[in-house]
């Protein structure tokens, strides 16, 4: 015997709705019937479940409601005694009841004020808020592909340690003689190691606990905290150099501005600040390689980044490009042609990264 077929309830409900539609059309199911189905339960308040359908109106009513109690007993003979006893009890507990009621009244008023029931708050605000928060969180996770197995991603596309070291070396000299240089997004601690090797004091922060652990194993100082939180926590002027490699393209422009402001507070006067990020002025970067990391939010043109720093009050701001592309068109032929190919090479296969360098105002 085969598995019995489940009843097609969707089809049934479709038929139900069709029948209702026809009855509406024919006027069998009209406003009079609707009114019948909305007749409230006579003889007192609505059922609370119905009140919940329109909590705002019901709340206003409930807040103004008086609780009444009639202590009179109608029992023969013993009635007056019961009535008297009830009155005595009521007078005894009156002050206690009053205190409880006063507290409840206070809570009611506070809640009503907090929910602003006469104002803009809509019914089911809480559940809607919850849904929005959940959707927002999901959206953020989807935007940066948080569900991607980052281990595999790192293995295939992650930065090559010697390359990172070579790039970082070019900037170490900027921090000569500094005592407390902060590396935002310090990763495995390659830059911190370079600093240490040259006797420069430094430490890093990173969000990835595995990275932080790896850096610590090498005897470097690293903390698991996000950049902005940390910058706001440190004492003003206590950091005398700042380095952030491949951080800016992972955050939104507003967050970047916030970080630049927080850096200004944290940095000692004259302290250098370096941000390194992919260079979208090179078209193969801006149009292709930049997007090889789904966590990249948006490319920042060098001029814009420079402008951010200047607007936020940093001095001696300069842009330095580096890391030329491996591929290039052959520059040959006459001088005109060579000039054109060189221009094309610069546009298509120019430097892949750039650094924007500034100094905290003195």
């Amino acid at each position, binding site marked *: 015997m085969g598995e*019995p077929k489940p009843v097609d309830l969707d089809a*049934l409900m479709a*038929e*139900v709705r069709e029948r209702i539609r026809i009855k509406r059309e024919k006027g069998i199911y009209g406003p009079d019937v609707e009114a019948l189905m909305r007749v409230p339960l006579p003889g007192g308040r609505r*059922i609370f*479940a119905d009140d919940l359908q329109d909590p705002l109106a019901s709340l206003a009513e409930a807040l103004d409601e008086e609780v009444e109690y009639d202590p009179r007993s109608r029992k023969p003979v013993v009635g007056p005694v019961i009535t008297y006893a009830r009155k005595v009890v009521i007078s005894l507990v009156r002050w206690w009841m009053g205190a409880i009621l006063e507290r409840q009244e206070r809570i009611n008023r506070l809640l009503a004020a907090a929910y602003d029931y006469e104002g803009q708050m809509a019914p089911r605000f809480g559940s809607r808020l919850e849904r929005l928060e959940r959707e927002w969180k999901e959206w953020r996770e989807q935007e940066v592909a948080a569900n991607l197995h980052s281990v595999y991603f790192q293995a295939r596309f992650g930065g090559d340690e010697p390359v990172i070291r070579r790039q970082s070396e070019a900037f170490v000299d900027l921090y000569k003689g500094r005592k407390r240089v902060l590396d935002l997004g310090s990763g495995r601690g390659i830059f911190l190691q370079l600093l240490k090797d040259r006797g420069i004091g430094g430490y890093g922060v990173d969000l990835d606990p595995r990275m932080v652990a790896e850096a610590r194993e090498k005897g470097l100082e690293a903390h698991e905290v996000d950049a902005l939180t940390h910058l706001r926590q440190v004492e003003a002027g206590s950091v005398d150099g700042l380095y952030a490699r491949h951080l800016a393209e992972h955050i939104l422009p507003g967050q970047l501005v916030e970080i630049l402001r927080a850096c200004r507070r944290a940095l000692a006067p004259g302290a250098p600040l370096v941000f390194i990020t992919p260079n979208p002025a090179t078209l193969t970067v801006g149009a292709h390689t930049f997007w090889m990391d789904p966590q990249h939010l948006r490319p920042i043109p060098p001029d814009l980044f420079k402008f951010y720093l200047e607007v936020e009050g940093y001095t001696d701001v300069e842009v330095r490009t580096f890391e030329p592309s491996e591929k290039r068109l052959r520059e040959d032929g006459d001088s005109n042609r060579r000039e054109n190919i060189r221009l094309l090479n610069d546009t298509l296969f120019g430097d892949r990264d750039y650094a924007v360098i500034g100094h905290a105002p003195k």
Partner: protein
Amino acid sequence: MRVHQFHPTLAPGDAMSNHVFALRKKIRHWGYESFAYAVEAKPGVADVRSYRRLFRDVKPEDLLIVHFSMGSEVVDQLIKIPSRRVLVYHNITPPEFFSGINPHAAAFARLGLRQLSRIAPAFELGIGVSEFNRRALVEAGYEETTRVPILLDWEHFALPPNDAVLARWKGLRTVLLFVGRISPNKRQDDLVRMLAYYRRCIDPEAQLILVGAYRDQPQFHARVVALIERLGLGGAVWFAGSVDDASLLACYRAATAFVSLSEHEGFGVPLLEAMRFRLPVVAYDAAAVGETVGDAGVLLRERDLAETAEAAAMVGEPSALREALVAAGERRVKDFDPEKVGERTRQVLGL
């Protein structure tokens, strides 16, 4: 080892009490001594001991099963008796449903919910009779929880249906039935409103039977009666009250559809009883209703009275659809087969 069960009140025809007695029968069948205790045993139930005896009867090696569906001072005392303790949660109707109708019941429900949380540490296991109830136990702070459905005992229906009841409803095209205490959470008022649609748009002769005690909620009952008058449905709704098994069986046999608009059920035994007696079920999906009905009834996701009525009409007419639904219902009942549930209970209780 002996197994003791406690619930503050045990009454005939009450799903919870039936569960206690069915469980006692099983446990005795497994060869253990087992007794039921109550503060109040209503007339009509036999072989129930006074809860005071628990303080003497329960030995440290015994198992004490506390059935919980209302607050009780006695439970606070019971958990001081050294023994293994398991709580079976039948759910407490949320106080909101009684607010403004029966302040006493609302306050009582609130106390019960607080007590449920307070006594959590005293139980080695919390059993929910539905997943809905099990989740409520988790929320109340129970660490070890599991779901074991209500143990149904079909044997007390092994009797002929009441002829008088059958005769009364014979030959009618539409007889809608709902079984459950008359109570605001069961929304008999909406069933009455739904009947107004039914008689105006489907069958002017349609009848509604409301089986269930109405003494607990006299205010609500009075107001539903007033609503019936207001809607001109006098004579179309029958409050059957608390009925015996023969009459209840007759109601299931006489009805054309079982309709539930209840907004709160901890399990919903009548849903399964209807299926068992080949009555198609149309039910609003709330609390544990959905998980009890499964795909063996028409589950309404929207609370629309017109749709409810039309669905009840569709499954009420003799058709292949009705037969399929009835067959699905009979299969669904087998999921709650007393043998299976009994085995599961035995395993969970470690007997």
